[in-house]
């Protein structure tokens, strides 16, 4: 595995507010290849901001600084920090795309889902309506929607949550990006649907040789799905390990989180409560 798809060096996200500056991400560095990388942490750990900062989607009063965010996609290597707004527009969706938590809020409610998927394709590829439509239907088929022609003409409120998330994934993958950032892509879904949606992402990552950043609060999910995991706390990466070794993690924060997590097999009884050590903020 070469770690040359994305390299982030000393990334910081700050919010300049009236009452002072809040640091959401505090100097993190990581590299990844065409693999499944998980970022886990609790709310406020900076995991979502990391995903947004890569795409330069942090809005004012937020600001992003880094030594470099080097992305090595199909159109060559470039630093996303210094790319022009027009270049970023082409990269977003085209080479790096993002799936958010809830399809209800990510899909346009007054446009059929098929048109939205076709639009995503036409923005990044110079093709006609008919070809875009065919590609969109093929993509719906790829995310295992049974009657793609019928679903093409439906509005978002006419599809279930699981189907909505598959439509989002279809839309994000139709321009064939090199990197997919998925921020809690299955948290709004039932567990059985979750497995289906993850299996689709899994296949597409493998078939297309794409990289995936899966941002999640669910340690079991990340441990069972990803190749590698970064654990974030207070805007820093406190631990990095292979996903299958997550249960043998060594950092006290990761250990504390695992101990606080109820498991189906454990006998009933008090769960261990996490005692936060101020030193973790500086580790």
């Amino acid at each position, binding site marked *: 595995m070469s770690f040359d798809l994305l390299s982030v060096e000393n990334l910081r996200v700050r919010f300049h507010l009236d009452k002072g500056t809040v640091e959401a991400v505090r100097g993190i560095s990581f590299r990844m290849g065409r693999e499944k990388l998980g970022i886990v942490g*609790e*709310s406020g750990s900076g995991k979502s901001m990391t995903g947004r900062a890569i795409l330069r989607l942090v809005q004012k009063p937020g600001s992003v600084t880094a030594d470099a965010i080097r992305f090595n996609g199909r159109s060559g290597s470039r630093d996303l920090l210094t790319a022009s707004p027009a270049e970023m527009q082409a990269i977003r969706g085209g080479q790096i795309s993002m799936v958010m938590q809830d399809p209800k809020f990510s899909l346009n409610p007054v446009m059929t889902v098929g048109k939205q998927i076709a639009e995503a394709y036409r923005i990044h590829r110079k093709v006609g309506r008919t070809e875009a439509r065919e590609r969109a239907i093929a993509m719906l088929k790829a995310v295992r929607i049974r009657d793609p022609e019928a679903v093409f003409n439906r509005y978002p409120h006419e599809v279930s*949550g699981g189907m909505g998330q598959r439509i989002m994934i279809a839309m994000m993958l139709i321009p064939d990006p090199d990197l997919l950032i998925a921020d809690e892509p299955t948290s709004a879904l*039932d*567990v*059985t649907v*979750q*497995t*289906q949606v*993850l*299996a689709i992402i*899994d296949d597409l990552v493998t078939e297309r040789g794409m990289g995936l950043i899966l941002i999640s*609060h669910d*340690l*079991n*999910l990340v*441990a*069972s*799905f990803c190749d590698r995991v970064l654990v974030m706390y207070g805007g820093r990466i406190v631990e990095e390990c292979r996903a299958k070794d997550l249960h043998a993690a060594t950092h006290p924060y990761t250990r*504390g*989180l695992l101990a*606080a*997590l*109820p*498991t*189906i*097999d*454990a*006998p*009933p*009884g*008090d*769960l*261990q*409560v*996490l005692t936060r050590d101020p030193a973790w903020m500086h580790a």
Partner: protein
Amino acid sequence: MTQPSLALEVQDLDVRFGSTHAVRGVSFTVSDGESFGIVGESGCGKTTVLRCLAGLNTKWSGTIRLAGQVRSHHRDLAAARLAQMVFQDPYGSLHPRHTVDRVLAEVCQIHGLDDVEGRIDRVLRQVGLGPSFRFRYPHQLSGGQRQRVAIARALILQPRILLLDEPTSALDVSVQAEILNLFRRLRREFGLTLVLVTHNLAVVTNLCDRLVVMHTGRVVEALDAEVLRTGTPQEAYTRQLLAASRGYDRSTLAAAEALEMGL
């Protein structure tokens, strides 16, 4: 005759919303001091059952008995004193412009309770918040602290039954552990009966002795938490839910899809 040791008895509960048949003939009983789970995926009717028990949903048919008393179909202060509810989202269930003190005092006022000061003081201590939290607004509290306030609001009436609707799913893992431990302590100290609605099987096996699994408005299976722990449920649907809850495993996919076709 109703046995006095039953905290809750539900018989043939049925709920329709227009053309949607949300709950279809659900029956179960919960003993005094027991911790009982209702588990299922979104839309299975689990929250609707709980809302009927709490009196928030008044259009149902069947019989509900709270501590032996038949529950009426209208707002009922006596029933409210028996069973109190804690909601999923502590950000949504507390009035943003009311202090903790006002939230708790309002309950005492509605129910005409005396010694409001003393009650508020005691209940805040019971949920692990000191008196310093009394005059704070919800936005000055963390998610876990807000949920403790919501629990205090339920406890201040000294109910026998707590109805819990996904009480930890909006919380971080470390905070969830604290709240689950709090429920266990309250149950022990006050002999409370807990009815927990959740989609999370790990939370259910941590807190409950017995549970029912619901799907499309019906009870699919009633079982002991121990059966989940040992992985030996009878019904295919429960087994599939259990497999999917253990994390990502592709091998469970084929069985899930076969079941979906069959249902």
